[in-house]
């Protein structure tokens, strides 16, 4: 090889190195000026967020993280009543609402290297309009349907925006909980799913291998790493490879973690409602007495006491008793196998009643299903358990291909869920009436928005069998402070969490 050839090859290699170094990646985000010497907090989670664009996010992890990356117009108080977050609102007429942005709202944070030269700027009414206009324009967003009643959005000034509706909706403000995006980036179709840019208390610093976040106020670094296996997650915490974990562990593990002197375990009540879904088109399950028999055949209190987290409690309706639209205690269906047997006989069922119960392959769900199977056997119900991988299981439920199934409603805030889950015209894919329940009287009550009467009717007719609200927990190293688990499992305390070095 001659000298010129060698020089050319050397030059080519050098230029390749230079170009590869210039290639922008998500990890090229420079640290925030306030980067502190505080130790990084590592949070192990069972499932990594799938989409950081609030217009598309539908999994629990994404929604929990998006609450910290973006700000929304509205949030909820402890009674799950909508309350101002970024803006206060006023209902001008049954068909229009005026939202006024707070003076002290946070600015958008544009990480260096994100392809924008402009300095940080405050969130404006134009950003609100751009965000919600883009959602209504999408055909593939899971949130688009919620805004089908939106006629148009008019910006009055930098701080004021008007929402005009097609039909009156008293609960419209409760829907405005999605994070607000910068208008100019919405316009150029920025990839928010991987490079989120918002005005929340945290900013995504790096998404290579793990999600590295940084708090804008003090530079505190927080890493989210995905560890799917619960035992491995627990071991990592015990060996101080991670600083905290939350949920998704067998309840027995909690006592083990509590016995470790280096760890703190905190628990709280939950609001996520678990239930047994019924196919109301099934010739047996369409009989009310059969459904009542099922409700009396499960010893829910024994299950809660023995195989569930502390602070788990009996469930009566999708919304918990402390919810503003609920505020009533429903009479629980007592465990009474002889009564269940009698009800089945009165319904003309030949015992044992054979039913197929579908569930996911999750070990705790299978465990609960097996216990219910044993309890139902005493009442004359022969339950066959079929565990399916999540995608197949959920697809079968949506198609109505089931007799019984077990699921949990996560993060439900508004009473409109009753209409979406039980109204006669809410069959999938339009709504969530997966059991194909048809009840003219309930439809009438839903139209009046009399939520107490609605709840009573559902509790009496049993289109599902209520089970429980599972408790929440978080386990962390002793040095972690200002974090506690929330009833809906959100991670909001990451905005205030702190750690001191050992």
């Amino acid at each position: 090889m001659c000298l010129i050839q060698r020089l050319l090859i050397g030059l080519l290699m050098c230029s390749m190195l230079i170009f590869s170094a210039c290639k922008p990646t998500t990890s090229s985000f420079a640290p925030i000026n306030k980067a502190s010497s505080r130790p990084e907090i590592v949070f192990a989670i069972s499932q990594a967020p799938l989409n950081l664009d609030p217009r598309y996010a539908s999994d629990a992890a994404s929604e929990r993280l998006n609450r910290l990356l973006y700000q929304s117009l509205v949030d909820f108080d402890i009674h799950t009543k909508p309350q101002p977050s970024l803006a206060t609102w006023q209902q001008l007429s049954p068909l229009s609402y005026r939202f006024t942005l707070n003076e002290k709202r946070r600015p958008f944070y544009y990480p260096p290297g994100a392809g924008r030269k402009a300095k940080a700027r405050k969130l404006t009414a134009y950003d609100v309009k751009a965000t919600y206009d883009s959602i209504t324009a999408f055909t593939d967003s899971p949130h688009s349907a919620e805004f089908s009643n939106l006629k148009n959005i008019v910006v009055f000034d930098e701080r004021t925006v008007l929402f005009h509706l097609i039909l009156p909706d008293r609960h419209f403000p409760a829907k405005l909980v999605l994070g607000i995006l910068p208008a100019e980036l919405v316009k150029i179709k920025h990839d928010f799913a991987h490079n989120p840019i918002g005005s929340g208390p945290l900013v995504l610093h790096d998404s290579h291998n793990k999600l590295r976040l940084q708090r804008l106020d003090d530079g505190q670094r927080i890493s989210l790493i995905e560890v799917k296996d619960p035992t491995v997650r627990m071991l990592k915490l015990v060996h101080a490879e991670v600083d905290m974990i939350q949920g998704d562990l067998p309840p027995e593990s909690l006592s083990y973690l509590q016995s470790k002197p280096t760890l703190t375990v905190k628990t709280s009540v939950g609001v996520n409602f678990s239930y047994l879904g019924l196919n109301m088109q099934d010739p047996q399950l369409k009989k009310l007495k059969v459904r009542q028999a099922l409700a009396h055949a499960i010893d829910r209190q024994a299950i809660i006491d023995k195989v569930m987290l502390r602070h788990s409690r009996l469930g009566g309706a999708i919304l918990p008793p402390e919810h503003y639209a609920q505020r009533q205690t429903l009479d629980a269906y007592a465990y009474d196998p002889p009564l269940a047997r009698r009800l089945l006989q009165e319904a003309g069922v030949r015992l044992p009643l054979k039913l197929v119960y579908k569930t996911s392959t999750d070990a705790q769900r299978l465990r609960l299903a097996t216990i219910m199977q044993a309890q139902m056997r005493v009442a004359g119900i022969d339950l066959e358990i079929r565990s399916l991988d999540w995608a197949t299981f959920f697809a079968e439920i949506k198609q109505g291909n089931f007799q019984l199934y077990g699921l949990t409603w996560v993060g439900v805030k508004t009473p409109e869920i009753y209409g979406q889950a039980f109204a006669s015209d809410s069959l999938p894919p339009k709504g969530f009436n997966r059991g194909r329940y048809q009840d003219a009287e309930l439809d009438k009550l839903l139209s009046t928005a009399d939520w107490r009467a609605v709840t009573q009717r559902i509790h009496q007719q049993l289109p599902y069998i209520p089970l429980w609200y599972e408790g929440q927990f978080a386990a962390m190293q002793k040095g972690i402070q200002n974090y506690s688990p929330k009833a809906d499992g959100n991670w909001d305390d990451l905005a205030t969490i702190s750690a001191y070095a050992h």
Partner: protein
Amino acid sequence: MIKILAYGILLFWLLAVVLGRLFQLDPNQIDLNAILNTPSAVYWLGNDDMGRSILARLLHGAEVSLLVAVSVTAVTMTVGVLIGLLAGFYGGRVDQVLMQVTDVFLAFPGILLAIAFAAVLGPGLLNLMIALSLTGWVSYARLTRGQTLSLRNRQHVLAALSLGASVPRLIGKHILPLLTSVLVVEAAYSLASVMMAEASLSFLGLGIQAPNASWGAMLRDGVRYMLVAPHYVLIVGLSLMSLILAINLGGDSLRDHLDVRQEAD
């Protein structure tokens, strides 16, 4: 000494399965007050995550494991030997086609193919046995074909052929009996690998379904509580290990016993 230990363990498990039937232990009896209890006078091996007796479930799991192992081995041996005999005896095109099919199956890792079949067929005992049978016959086919190729040219086979013996008679009376010792040793090793495959598929949730007991599913549950109740996973793990080891050692001893060259030495 090792031989005695191996046969002893095998005998122990066979007796345990039979006695488990006699004592009518209920492997599905749930006791929520005994969740993950350590061994006691009432529950000799402790309780699982639903308070069920680990001993009862272990015995029931052993029964399932042995049933699957024996059934699958019987089916795979029959199919594999038949294919190997036909390929080896006829040779030519028949051999080419049958061995190419066998090679295709051999090209995939057996357990992965079984997982794929089990996933397509769906979970359950019968489907598990079908999945394992679909992948297990190839080793018998290869072995039988190789042996048949050398046996078919032996003097006694050629003599029978010249005397007008039919093909079934030639295979059944003059070739198959000479294959028996090789096949018995292969079957012994196959029992162990089928038991392991059954446990693996059940561990992945593709085998026996709840509430029925199987060692793989018990192992999976045990791992979840490894830090809280280590006795659970240890008991199941040691049981599986002892049985597989005993079958393999039994196979070794059977091979030594049937090996004529070793006897000549």
